[in-house]
């Protein structure tokens, strides 16, 4: 029995094995990985809220572009340090006022962020000309600035949403006259605290969840045969039907099925089996349904019927069918089948011819490895009327087999033949 079922059993579980043994763990692993990455992104790898960007310039004046101060966040702290010991001033003013103040000077523009840690700079020259006149005030004294912070060496200023729209002008030599161009090395560092951080964790959690779902599905739903998943109707209820459902399509099935269909079609066109089949149907209706040996085997072994047994067992005996499990010598059948399977491929065409010539009712299997005949026979078995003669024959045979089984298990094959002979 085990040997006969091997092919079928192997194929079904193979799907389940791959799904449960390979795909599910992979999805599971991915789910765990994604969720772990999500957790890491939410904690350890969380984007740093503290942004610190630096720029270095070497001109007397340094000016931030409008919008730089609020580029990362509204609140910014600007630390400025100068290598010179002259007065260092940081002022907030309108762009046009700054441009007017530094007219004619080379200056350094702070143009944006080139990375999270550095401020991009650009060299520029303010239009206009340097005009120095009596009554000029220093940068610190000028009325124009909204805010002025001065110091020596280093200065730190804070800007908030209220006043970060105004650019900063940094003068490393704030007490010097307007036409002075002495410069010093200036380092500008801007600190922001990002209030809205990019969220990488949630998408990873989502992907992880999807992977977990996929793992569960591949362990359950996708591990089942598609047809099994699909069919839930009454057709699947009988054990025999269920067995047939489990037959999986293989390439040999497709090849042999196609070839078989071809020859079957030729046979039916020639009306070789048609008459016989009709006769059989008539008999079945009368209650004396003959059950060809091959078909019986088919029912029990499924695939075996497609691989040659049916073809070989060409003798058709009329009369009621009695399925006697005890009468089957499974070991012998297995051995026979194994040898036949080996010669399967080459035997196939002849067999079909034989079958056609012998006018058996064996239909070559269709693409799904099932035949209409077999389905019908399954119904027959459940509804066969057992006549008193049948019973008598059965008991007689049981008695004979009792005796025969004592003489040796190998004789079962003969018994089998005898059974048919009796009928």
């Amino acid at each position, binding site marked *: 029995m085990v040997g006969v079922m091997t092919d079928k059993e192997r194929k079904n579980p193979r799907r389940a094995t791959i799904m449960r043994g390979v795909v599910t763990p*992979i999805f599971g692993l991915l789910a765990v990985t994604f969720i772990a990455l999500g957790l890491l992104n939410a904690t350890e*790898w969380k*984007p740093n809220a503290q942004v610190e960007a630096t720029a270095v310039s070497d001109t007397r004046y340094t000016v931030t572009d409008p*919008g730089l101060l609020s580029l990362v966040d509204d609140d910014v702290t600007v630390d400025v340090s100068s290598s010179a010991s002259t007065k260092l001033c940081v002022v907030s003013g309108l762009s046009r006022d700054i441009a007017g103040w530094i007219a004619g000077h080379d200056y350094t523009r702070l143009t*944006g962020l080139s*990375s999270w840690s550095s401020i991009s700079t650009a060299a520029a020259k303010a239009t206009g000309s340097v*005009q120095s006149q009596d*009554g000029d*005030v220093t940068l610190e004294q000028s009325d*124009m600035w909204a805010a002025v912070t001065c110091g020596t060496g280093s200065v730190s200023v804070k800007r908030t949403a209220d006043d970060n729209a105004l650019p900063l002008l940094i003068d490393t030599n704030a007490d010097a006259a307007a036409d002075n161009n002495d410069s010093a090395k200036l380092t500008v560092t801007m600190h922001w605290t990002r209030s809205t951080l990019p969220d990488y964790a949630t998408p990873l959690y989502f992907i992880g969840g999807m992977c977990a779902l996929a793992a569960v599905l591949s362990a359950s739903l996708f591990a089942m045969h598609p047809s099994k998943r699909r069919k839930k109707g009454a057709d699947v209820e009988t054990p025999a039907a269920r067995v047939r459902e489990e037959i999986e399509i293989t390439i040999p099935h497709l090849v042999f099925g196609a070839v078989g269909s071809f020859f079957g079609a030729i046979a039916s066109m020639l009306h070789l089996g048609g008459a016989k089949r009709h006769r059989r149907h008539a008999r079945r209706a009368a209650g004396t349904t003959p059950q060809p040996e091959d078909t019986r085997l088919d029912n029990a072994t499924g695939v075996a019927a497609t691989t040659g047994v049916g073809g070989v067992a060409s003798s058709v005996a009329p009369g009621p069918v009695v399925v006697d499990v005890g009468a089957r010598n499974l070991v012998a059948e297995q051995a026979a089948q194994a040898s036949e399977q080996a010669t399967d491929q080459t035997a196939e065409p002849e067999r079909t011819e034989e079958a056609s010539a012998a006018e058996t009712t064996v239909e070559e299997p269709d693409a799904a490895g099932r035949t209409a005949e077999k389905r019908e026979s399954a119904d027959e078995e459940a509804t066969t009327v057992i006549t008193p003669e049948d019973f008598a024959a059965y008991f007689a045979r049981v008695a004979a087999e009792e005796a025969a089984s004592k003489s040796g298990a190998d004789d079962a094959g003969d018994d089998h033949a005898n059974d048919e002979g009796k009928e």
Partner: protein
Amino acid sequence: MSINRNSTRNFAVRALAALAAIAALGGMAGCDGPVPKMAASATSTAKTPDLNVDQEAKIRADILDALKQADDAKDPSKLAEVVEGPALAVRTSQLTTAQATGSITKYATIPSDIEQTVIPTDTGWPRSVFTITTTTEDRQTQRLLVMNQSSAHQNYKLWGVVRLLAGAQLPKFAVPKIGASMGHADDEGLVATPADAVAHYADVLANGTNSQYASEFADDDFRSTIATTTATVQQGMEANRGTQTQTFSAEPDAISIMRSSDGGDLVVAQINSEWTRQAGEGRESLPASADETALFGGATATSTLKVTYVNVVALYVPQASSGAKIQAVGAERQPVKVEAL
């Protein structure tokens, strides 16, 4: 066998894919996100006022502080840091008079509270800020202050102070948050260009109703007061067989203009005048007022006295389409020099 091989290959492929995916994720891990880019329209063309009201208040407070120090010391030399233009001439004269009289004239008072300030949005220099104060404690009319910044490296200075004429109606101006626009001496579309309006007003001051421009101007107290004074002096002169001549001329480029909400220009300008009085019949011509006396000091009087005045006038020049006349809304008149010829 083939099954095993297949599943092995399958597994290998999937494992590789998984590893690749994990490696890709690893690259993503710890990323700080894209660096924010500067907005393309960073250089906004939107007009913003040159100053906010706090800056204006600070500038004005600094100026008034300096004025108070100069007033207290009665020292005109302290004015130059914060005062310029006609205001400097007027204030210097007032302080010089104060040195003689002992106290500064009540007309020099500038209230520290304001009714309104008009801040322009103009770029470039010079820039002007117009501020209208409250009435003084002794119920004098409001002062119109004009503060100018001549260049980027200069601070705002008090350029002109005008006492509003009683009952004068000032035009409306844009609020400081929005900012007004400065006018120009050659603005078109008005009843007259601001420069012309000032020149014509000087002619009207000199010639009264006989001026060819008299019809351009609505009546105002300043003009009528000068006319009355001139008429009174004329009577006295005629009794003494003396003569008097008074000339008015607009000071070139001493003009500040602010555009009002309805498109007209409020013009503040300096008009210089010289009043020459010649006594008849060999008499000496003497200063006619306390101010003139103080300015004249101990100089030797002759038959001819020339008094130089600085007049600062505020004229509202409406749009030509309005059909209105030019209206003087404020004025200041101060003798700055008295000399015997």
